[in-house]
């Protein structure tokens, strides 16, 4: 932006010079062209800058519009046609019953954390170990095969993951060891999510291990360590900041995933009461198969059916705002892990 006054000062000078030079010696066409090119060169900078600034504006724009609608739930803003809610009754209550004026979103927050946590529990160790395998142990044909497998896994659309869970895994689990009770809930959602986020973790973990100096490897082998000892005691600790980044980005992907989870989780905002009921009568494992809901699934499920401006609608937008803020926090967190310090 601060280049514009400078270039606008130079540009007219160039234009004025041109006819004078023309009169003295008829300039060859290439010469004039190159003047034009120099002008274009000066101004093109601004075009590219505008594109970048547009991205920055988008970040701000999303924040602005989501805040305008999300905060309308708590403030008497223009977008609010119902009553204003207090922060406590939204963020500190487990009671979600919009038709009787209760808007506690804790069940969804809890659901999101539970599903994401479980998914990360499955995906982080396997993803990091696969990363180390690709970077340090695998023969080259296996390496390229694994890369292709991960590329395909990350490319499969979330609805296809969802339909796979819905039509294949759910009936299978339900018939095989749940005595035909519905299997939808945390366990299956987390399983599917973990497959969806593993490629992210694997590719970042592979980069992390490949980025380590070879001397670490050689040093530990010279001290007589086995391959695994070198990995466990030297390479993984050395790559830890970047592995943490990989996990956080995987977490971000998992928490924002909507469609696949919506198709298999059962969409039950009252899951806390149901789970208490289940675990009173059945073993704890049954709790994993409680139909539940998360921030994203509830948005998909209810947003199309709510009137604009109602507290219900506004609270849903507030949930979206929460997801967005969470993303920002996660991205800033990866910065703090000092990715640049290793890279």
């Amino acid at each position, binding site marked *: 932006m601060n280049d514009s006054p400078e270039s606008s000062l130079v540009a007219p000078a160039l234009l004025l010079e041109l006819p004078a030079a023309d009169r003295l010696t008829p300039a060859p066409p290439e010469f004039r062209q190159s003047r034009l090119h120099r002008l274009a060169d000066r101004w093109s900078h601004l075009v590219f800058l505008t*594109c970048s600034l547009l991205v920055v504006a988008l970040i701000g724009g999303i924040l602005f519009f989501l805040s305008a609608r999300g905060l309308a739930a708590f403030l008497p803003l223009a977008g609010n046609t119902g009553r204003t809610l207090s922060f406590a009754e939204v963020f500190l209550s487990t009671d979600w019953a919009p038709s009787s004026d209760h808007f506690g979103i804790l069940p969804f927050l809890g659901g999101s954390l539970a599903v994401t946590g479980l998914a990360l529990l499955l995906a982080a160790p*396997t993803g990091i170990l696969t990363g180390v395998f690709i970077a340090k142990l695998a023969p080259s044909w296996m390496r390229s095969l694994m890369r292709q497998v991960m590329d*395909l896994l990350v490319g499969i*659309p979330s609805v296809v993951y969802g339909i796979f869970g819905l039509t294949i895994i759910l009936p299978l689990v339900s018939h095989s060891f749940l005595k035909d009770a519905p299997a939808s809930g945390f366990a299956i959602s987390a399983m599917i999510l973990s497959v969806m986020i593993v490629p992210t973790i694997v590719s970042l973990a592979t980069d992390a291990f490949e980025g380590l100096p070879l001397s670490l490897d050689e040093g530990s082998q010279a001290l007589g360590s086995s391959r695994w000892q070198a990995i466990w005691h030297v390479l993984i600790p050395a790559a830890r900041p970047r592995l943490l980044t990989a996990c956080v980005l995987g977490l971000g992907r998992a928490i924002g995933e909507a469609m696949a989870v919506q198709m298999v989780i059962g969409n039950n905002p009252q899951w806390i009461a149901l789970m208490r009921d289940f675990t009173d009568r059945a073993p704890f494992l049954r709790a994993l198969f409680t139909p539940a809901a998360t921030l994203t699934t509830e948005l*998909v499920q209810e947003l199309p059916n709510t009137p604009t401006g109602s507290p219900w609608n506004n609270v849903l937008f507030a949930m979206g705002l929460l997801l967005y803020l969470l*993303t920002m926090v996660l991205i800033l967190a990866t910065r703090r892990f000092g990715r640049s310090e290793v890279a």
Partner: protein
Amino acid sequence: MRAIATLRSPSRAKHVDKLMRGVLWVIALGFILVLAVFVGAILHQGWPVLRLDFLTRMPETLEAGGGIKPQIFNSIYLVLLSLGFSLPIGLGAGVYMAEYAGKGRTLNFFRLCIETLAATPSIVLALFGMIVFVQTLGWSFSIRSGALTLALLNIPVITRVTEVSLMGVPRELKEASYGLGATKLQTILKVALPYAATGILTGLVLTAGRAFGESAILVFTAGTNTSAIFPDFRLTVPGETLSVHLWYVTSDGTLPDAREIAAGTAAVMILVLLILNLSVRFLDRAIRRRTR
């Protein structure tokens, strides 16, 4: 001290080493198995449905036997439109970050923004698109709302790919260009971008695949209906894509053959993605051959 303790019993270490190598192989092969079962099951389920008239018939709303012709058209149309919107911006931003931004705070800040946009959940982008295009601009559920919101998903990917590809251009090439008297813009347009083009193209194909599979954004911006006319190029009509159709028929439940339609649609999507991935591999090989 710790190193000595762990290295004390070499025979045990050897056993652990063997065991853990085995574990790593099992995990890796496990992922290959997961993918194989996944793709196999989807194709197996969808195969009986995949006949030509499934692909070339209009969908039904209440009866069995509907096809997915308009959804295929809408998917392609929306992906192309969204790429059309996002390509200039993504390219521009990528060029700026690779060639103009330098190495300091500016670059860091733009990178942070790109990363944030890339990590933003698609459901959040969907809400944004719904507020801005569907409601504020009053475009309702339409192809244009969908394409513009989908573009937000593509922009960070294209930017990143452009930046990385431009970073890979050898310095000698650019210096030679400057040495011949070319301006920076000429060097970028005529030397750096053509050199990086295959890399950018690979990224574009991957972006197209991602946009093709996206559903959350389009449910809230392009809607779950299709125009009755085929092919309908108007930007103001709702445009349900394959992925949205797949989700909608399973969650709506008014169609008697929803399960078959979903299975067939899923198989079509998997096939398209396999083809896209294969073409990316060919592109990739072309790049390697040239740079070797």
